């Protein structure tokens, strides 16, 4: 499984871990991992600690998640991006849009 999802007991925290590659092929899996969560104030954590490649469609997918989170007055946190992925996030200046925890 390239996308692993974990939901906390109170349904408030959804953690989504991505495998080695985060690209367009994960589109459906990534969406499935969060779309059913309708919990107000939910926090979505994207764990990128194993991800070594990310393309611009992955950035787009994160923005869709951000839209979803904002509708629930929740937020998105990017967790432990690897150096390669962090470089891509930095170029796209994603820290201006959401929290990135290194």
């Amino acid at each position: 499984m390239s996308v692993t999802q974990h939901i906390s007991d109170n349904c408030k925290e959804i953690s989504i871990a991505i495998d080695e590659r985060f690209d367009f092929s994960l589109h459906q899996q990534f969406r499935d991992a969060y779309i059913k969560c309708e919990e107000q104030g939910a926090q979505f954590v994207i764990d990128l600690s194993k991800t070594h490649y990310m393309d611009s469609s992955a950035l787009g997918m994160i923005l869709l998640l951000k839209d979803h989170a904002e509708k629930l007055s929740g937020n998105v946190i990017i967790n432990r991006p690897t150096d390669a992925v962090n470089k891509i996030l930095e170029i796209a200046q994603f820290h201006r849009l959401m929290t990135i925890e290194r």
Partner: protein
Amino acid sequence: MSKINAKLALVVDDSVMQCKVLSVLLKEEGYRVFTANDGARAVSMYIKYQPDLVLMDINMPVMNGYEATREIKALSKNSLCPLIFITSMDSDQAFIEAIEAGGDGILVRPFSPDVFKAKIKSIQRISDLYCQVKSLQLEQQKDAELAEQLMSRVIESRNYALDKIGIVKQPAALFSGDIQLTAACPDGNINVLLGDFTGHGLRSSVGAIPLSETFRAMTRKGFSLIDIVSQINRQLYQLLPADLFLSAAFVSLSVSEQSVFVFNAGLPEVYHYDAQGEIVEKISSDHPPLGVLPELLSDAQVEVRSVNDGERIILISDGIVEARNSVGDMYEYERFELAASDGIRAGKVIENIMASVQDFCENQPQEDDISIVDLPCSGWEQINRNLHRIDVPINDSYVFDSSVPPSWSWQLSLTGSRLRNTNTIPLVMSQISEIEGQAEHWQNLFTVMTELYVNALDHGVLQLSSDLKSSPEGFAEYFRERELRLARLEEGYVNLSIRYFAAENGGCVVVTIKDSGNGFDPEPFQLENDHEKLQALSGRGIGLVEQLCESLEYKEGGSLVEACYVWRND
């Protein structure tokens, strides 16, 4: 079923009896049937009739069924004409050979008429599906080609100065998600954009048309770089779905000020190289890609840098640094930087970089679009000359009579914080073209008004000294100070008025600009020697205005200027 629309079947068997039996069954299914009694004859019948179905025996004289099948399949590469072997050879070997020769199925005797008909139906269903997919694919291909043609006509064909700006566009798919635009501002500045839409293919190029239209229209009207960027951001945010956005770097080269303005939103670092191929600076992205946020971030700002002769600005998208070789290594920034340096020293920037990428990747398939824009910072004087054609002085008999009332006049007074609006002159120009229509020489008038307005604002209202520009860091320093003072501006004014006088075969526009400043020492402007005068004036960028105008006069200690611009229609 009418005879004309009936499907054609070709039955191949050396036994006349077998041919007849199969023909009867096929006719019951609505086929028209031709028969051949050996493989060679089957091939020539196939060529002649182009049937929809072939039934093939294996053992035949002259040419056997396998051989005939190979030839027929070679002839029908782009269409699926289903071919079924009919045989009594019930062996694995026969089955394997039949499929390998290109057969789509095999039916072993004996079989009942119903089993035969069922087999024909199933194979026909597959073939119909194949035809449907094929024609859809063809249609899509045609649409895509048309759209691609349209796109490249709208976009690339209208780029400016392609003989001077080096551009590489190597798409990974038929449509490129990357876009390169160049356009000239009315005052001769060059605006360049390299953009990378999310993904590639048709989906990623839908934003290209609105993007290029906005970029060109606003550049042509003389809007400042930050205004162009914010408008494009707003437009893409409204047009595109949330996961589709544009990473882009914008560069505006000011030839007269020897400066570049750079805005990098989500693209790799913008390279500034000197004439020896050394990196002067890399300007990294400091804004999220465009189309992500409804408005630009409040601290969004354009970087300003001085540039010297022989220097270049090079833009790349991530496709080049992420290009892979056969062992999966990426091309990376270091290789690019070396190739660019060598290229600059050899005078072949683009060629050198592309050769290096090719050497590295060998024949690996390209995963992402590869784009480079190479913008030389000097040598534009020749190319820009056409922009400011100085017309022959109009004939002496034309006398501008100021006692005649103008055809129309228009005026604008801006005060305090409203002076921060950078679009004053485009606004004025749009008034003029609203009333008088588009004309090529408005470009000269744009230059005249921009120079005079900027002087009134910078030196009059903001009290900036031109001396700032003479330091080596020059214009960049000046620009920063200007931004600072503009942001704090609470009082002061600039009044601008236009009087338009129509004449028989031309006309005259008198521009008057008055500012709240203290004026300036008019001493240098009263020099006897024309050359000296121009030299002194150049500090205020007035040299060009003088050349373009019939007359230029400073009054009220320099806080009021009146310029008279005259043209003649040929």
